[in-house]
C-alpha cells in the first residue's frame, strides 16, 4: 500500500525539520477521515472495557441473587454499596485507605532508594556483584511472606508493615535497576571517559540518567509489590489499613466489609498505577 510506505518514510524524518507535513492548505478530507477512524477505534475500546466491567458485576449480582452461588460467601454488588456508604460515613474507610496508602508510599520510596543504591554499588564493583549474585537470586525467589511473623516480632506492629513492603519490593528493584545500569551503551561511557570523567561522574552523568527507562519499569513493578507487602503485613499486625479491614471482616464473617475493602484496594492500586503510567509517559518522551 502506498499510504503505508509514505508514513514509514515520514516517521524517519525528524519532526522539527519535517518538510513533508503540510500546514498551509489545511488538512485534506482523506486525513480528516483517517483521524475520525482512529478516534472511533479509541472510543470503541473504551466502551468495550466499560461493558466488560458492567457485565462482570451483573453476573456477580445475578448469580448471588438467584442463589446460583451462596450470597453469604460471595456477597453481591448492590449489597456492597450500603456497606461502602456506611464505612465511608463513619470515616473508617478513609482512615484505613489512608493508612494503607501511606504505608505503601513509605515502603515504595524506601525500597526504590535502597534498591537503586544497592544496584549502584553492584555496578561500581563487579567483584561485589559476582560475590552477591547467587544470594540476590535466592533472596528474590524466596517467598518473603514467610517472614511476616518474624518481622512482627522484630519490628513491632507499625514497622513490620513497612519491612514487609520493602522486603517484597526491594530485590526486584535491585535486579531491574542493575540490569538497566549494565545495559548502558559502552560507547556512551567511553565518550565520558575521553572527556576525563571519574567513575562517580560516569554513574551520575551517564549510567543513572541513561537508565531512567529501566528505573521507571522498576517503579511500576515496585508499586504493586509494595502494596502486596503492606496488605500482607497488615493481615498479621496492624490495627488499621485495608489489610486489617479484610482480616477483621472475615473473622466476624462480614463478607460485605471484606469485599468492599477489596474493591477499594482495587481502585487504589489502579490509581497508583495510572499515576506511574503518567510519569512514565512524560519521561519517556525524552528517551524515544
Amino acid at each position, binding site marked *: 500500500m502506498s499510504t503505508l510506505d509514505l508514513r514509514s518514510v515520514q516517521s524517519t524524518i525528524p519532526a522539527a525539520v519535517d518538510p513533508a507535513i503540510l500546514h498551509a492548505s489545511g488538512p485534506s478530507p482523506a486525513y480528516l477521515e483517517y483521524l475520525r477512524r482512529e478516534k472511533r477505534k479509541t472510543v470503541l475500546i473504551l466502551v468495550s472495557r466499560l461493558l466488560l466491567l458492567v457485565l462482570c458485576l451483573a453476573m456477580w449480582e445475578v448469580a448471588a441473587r438467584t442463589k446460583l452461588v451462596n450470597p453469604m460467601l460471595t456477597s453481591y454488588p448492590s449489597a456492597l454499596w450500603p456497606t461502602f456508604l456506611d464505612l465511608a460515613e463513619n470515616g473508617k474507610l478513609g482512615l484505613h485507605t489512608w493508612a494503607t496508602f501511606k504505608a505503601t508510599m513509605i515502603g515504595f520510596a524506601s525500597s526504590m532508594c535502597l534498591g537503586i543504591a544497592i544496584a549502584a554499588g553492584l555496578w561500581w564493583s563487579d567483584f561485589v556483584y559476582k560475590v552477591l549474585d547467587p544470594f540476590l537470586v535466592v533472596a528474590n525467589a524466596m517467598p518473603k511472606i514467610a517472614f511476616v511473623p518474624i518481622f512482627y516480632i522484630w519490628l513491632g506492629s507499625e514497622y513490620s508493615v513497612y519491612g514487609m513492603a520493602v522486603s517484597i519490593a526491594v530485590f526486584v528493584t535491585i535486579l531491574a535497576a542493575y540490569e538497566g545500569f549494565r545495559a548502558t551503551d559502552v560507547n556512551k561511557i567511553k565518550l565520558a571517559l575521553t572527556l*576525563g570523567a571519574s567513575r562517580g561522574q560516569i554513574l551520575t552523568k551517564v549510567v543513572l540518567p541513561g537508565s531512567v527507562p529501566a528505573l521507571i519499569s522498576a517503579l511500576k513493578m515496585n508499586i504493586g509489590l509494595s502494596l502486596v507487602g503492606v496488605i500482607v503485613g497488615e493481615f498479621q499486625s496492624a490495627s488499621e489499613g485495608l489489610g486489617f479491614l479484610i482480616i477483621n471482616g472475615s473473622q466476624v464473617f462480614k463478607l460485605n466489609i471484606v469485599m468492599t475493602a477489596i474493591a477499594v484496594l482495587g481502585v487504589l492500586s489502579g490509581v497508583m498505577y495510572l499515576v506511574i503510567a503518567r510519569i512514565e509517559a512524560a519521561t519517556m518522551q525524552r528517551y524515544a
Partner: protein
Amino acid sequence: MSAAINRGSPLGTAPAAGGTRPRIEIDNVSLRYFSSRGETQALDGISLEIAAGEFVSIIGQSGCGKSTLLSIIAGILEPSRGSVLVDGQPVTAPSQRIGYMLQQDYLYEWRTILDNALLGAEIQKRDLKKARQRAIQLLEKCGMGDFIHHYPRQLSGGMRQRVALARTLVTNPDVVLLDEPFSALDSQTRLAIADEVADVLRSEGKSVVLVTHDIGEAIAMTDRVVVLSRRPGRIKSQHMIGFPSHPQGRPTPFEARSLPEFNGYFSTLWDELDVHVEG
C-alpha cells in the same frame, strides 16, 4: 611552554619549524593484550611525530590497530611499551588537551543539544557560564544555532555529528582525534560534513589525527597520510599530501577530490594498502 608559543598556523600545511617541539610525540609504542584465548600483538613499535596545527591521517585495513592507537594517544588505553607525549608531557590518563570524536555521535538522548555540547565542560568542572557561551558560538559555527534546545532524536545523522564536533571543541583541546567520524553517515552527507569539520578544525588551529579506512577521505582532509600494516600494526609508509595546482595550496576536502594530484595519491596508497578482495 611550547604550547603557548606555537598555536599552529591556520593553514597548518607546514610542519613545525626546526627547534620547536612537535605537539604529539609517539615513541616506540607497542600494545599486547591478553584474553582467555591467548595474547595478541596489536601494535608494534609505532613512532610518530605530529606538529602543532598539522592534520595527519592513519589508514590501514580493519583490525590493524589504528583505533587502538588513537585510544592510546587519548590516554584511555595504556601501551605495553613506549610512551606518548603531548607538548612534552606524558599522557597517562585522559587529558583535557585532547579531544576525541568517536565513530558515532553518542549524544545523550536525555540532554538537549546545548547540554550535550556542555558535557565535557561539566565533567571537567569548567566555568559553565563561559563554556555555555563557547558552546553556543561553536554550535552556530557548525550551523546548529537554531537547534540548541532540541533533543538529539529530532536531528538527522549529519546534524548529530556536527553537535558531536562542537562537544569535542567546547573544552578547547589542542589535539583532536577523529576515529572514523563519518562512517555512520551516508555518502553525500559524509562529503559535506567532512568539509565542514575540516574547515572548523583548521580555523581553530587544532592538530588533528584522523583514523579512517577511506583512502579518499585521508587524502582530501589531511597533510600527511600514515599507512599501517596488518596486525601487528607497524608504520609501513608515510606520504606528504600537497596540492600545488590549487591557487591557495589548501583546497577544501571536496575540491581536493577533483584536483589532478588526487588520483596519483590514491593509486599510490591503494597499492600500499595492498587490499585483497576475498570471497
